[in-house]
């Protein structure tokens, strides 16, 4: 959250100004985004990774859980990446195929990141929009509540939640998502405050549209830009958080894995001369995070009319 917050700082102003320009915002933004080479390359990288997680398994000779009995016990000598054995990325410490596991881990990390970010964005947007639109007492009560939650050391609450509810995959991203919507709520509230005095909202109010419908039909669509930026930056952060949870041994259940879990295993065995156990998952992890950051930055710059 801290990361996404820091990257979207200043965006508030920008979007407020750009809203005045109306429809052409998205066209302008699109043009600016395409001109940002790093962002465009990153979009392709992300697409390639996603595509790979779907196509990759076709070429795999091993499942994520099959133990290669010929290699078990001799990982350092025989577990290296090889076309011959069918372990393109080598094997892990239990002689399971790293290629399949990296693909599966990438999928899980992406899903955790996207789902957690989606929950955070959905809750945060709705909460912020409602608070901002209704204003007054409701607003200050709702925002005080956000302040309160903001003060809770969230990492520790996540650890507590995971300890209590065991290791359910659902709990994992729900827990992460539910604590990550605060920054989103603050930004959206600020936006809504600015939007609600605009003519089209006043017109809707005058024609007797119900308040929640106004929030849904008229406010939300105008928040899309900032939400998109925030969401893109939240995903890598959720992936990082998941990796930390995996490091603590509280991550996803075997035989399934995540990039965080694979990296954590690899980091532990780094000095055993089995560097591939760390290298492949780390490479995917790094490329993926970069791409999300660049896309997020690109989107932000594109939505910001001030030329940098």
């Amino acid at each position, binding site marked *: 959250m801290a990361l996404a917050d820091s990257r979207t700082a200043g965006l508030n102003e920008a979007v407020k100004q750009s809203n005045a320009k109306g429809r052409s915002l998205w066209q302008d933004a699109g043009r600016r985004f395409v001109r940002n080479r790093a962002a465009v390359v990153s979009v392709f990288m992300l697409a390639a990774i996603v595509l790979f997680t779907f196509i990759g398994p076709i070429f795999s000779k091993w499942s994520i859980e099959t133990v290669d009995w010929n290699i078990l016990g001799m990982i350092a000598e025989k577990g290296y990446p090889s076309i011959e054995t069918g372990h393109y990325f080598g094997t892990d410490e239990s002689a399971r195929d790293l290629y399949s596991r990296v693909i599966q881990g990438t999928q899980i990390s992406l899903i955790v990141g996207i789902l957690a970010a989606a929950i955070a964005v959905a809750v945060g947007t709705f909460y912020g929009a409602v608070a901002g639109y209704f204003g007054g007492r409701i607003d200050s009560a709702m925002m005080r509540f956000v302040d*309160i939650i903001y003060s809770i050391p969230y990492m520790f609450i996540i650890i507590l939640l995971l300890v209590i509810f065991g290791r359910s995959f659902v709990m994992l991203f729900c827990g992460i998502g539910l604590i990550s919507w605060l920054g989103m709520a603050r930004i959206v509230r600020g936006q809504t405050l600015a939007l609600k005095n605009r003519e089209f909202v006043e017109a809707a109010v005058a024609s007797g549209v119900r308040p929640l419908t106004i929030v849904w039909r008229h406010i939300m669509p105008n928040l899309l830009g900032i939400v998109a930026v925030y969401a893109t930056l939240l995903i890598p952060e959720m992936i*990082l958080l998941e990796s930390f949870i995996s490091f603590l041994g509280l991550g996803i259940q075997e035989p399934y894995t995540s990039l965080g879990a694979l990296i954590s295993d690899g*980091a532990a065995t780094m*000095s055993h001369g089995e560097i591939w156990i760390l290298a492949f998952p780390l490479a995917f992890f790094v490329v993926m995070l970069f791409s999300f950051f660049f896309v997020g930055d690109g989107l932000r710059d594109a939505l910001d009319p001030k030329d940098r």
Partner: protein
Amino acid sequence: MLKFILRRIAIAVPTLLLLIVMSFFLMKLAPGNPFQGEKNLPKQVMDNIYARYGLDKPEWQQLLEYVWNVVVHFDFGPSFKYKDRTVNEIIAQGFPVTLTYGFWAFLVASTVGISLGTLAAIRQNSWIDYLSVGVTIGAQVLPNFVLAPILVLVFTLGLHWLPGGGWYNGQWQYVVLPVIALSATYMANIARIMRSSMLEVLGSNYIRTARAKGLPGWQVILKHALKPSLLPVVSYLGPVFVGMITGSVVVDLYFSTGGIGQAFVNSALNRDYSTILGITILLGALTIAANLVCDVLYAVLDPKIRY
């Protein structure tokens, strides 16, 4: 301003109470208890232990007594796991350690980050810009549980410069690696924020005016550009501070520094109720304080904000 601070402090009290109650019941929900070991204890023995720690009382009573002790006596009670230590002692011992390397990491992250970001912005598209972007990007995506073993492999096993763990009352050589491992990510973030905000300020009209008046470059930057471009950095410092404490989990586990992060994870895993509660409350209070300081600092720096 004073009213703003007072209001924030007024919110802090219910926040902390909520935190206590929430953590208290979360902990009770967790399966297992602090006294269950690998060997099962006879029921009689378990009952004696429960009585000793007051766990045989109804939960509301335990909660009330706990809150009373914390609020009135500032006493977090005895640790259930480390039986000859109180929670106050555990905090008193672990917190200075965390604070020491946290402070240095904070200092390194902010000074190096701000300087690197400023340099990169002034010399945009020069080698120093590319170097700083490269370093920051690397540090940003490398989880510190990967960075820590790499540092040890290089500086301990490879170069024999620094010890691979321990604390020994905070002698400098034991502090260096934890500080690097902890500060890298934040340093990178600060540098990146600083760079973009400095670029933005340098492009603004009043800097152009200042330049046009013929003020020397460094003077323009120090006197006019630095303060406004620090704003986004300052708003990020609160989260950095909290991150230092969270990050201490990895540092403590890997470098055996004996800080508060390790105490927290261990007590959560051991169901050491009193220690978890104590540390959670302490960290909650610190988080609130950090955010408050951060907001005040922001207000001081930003002339537009009036509370």
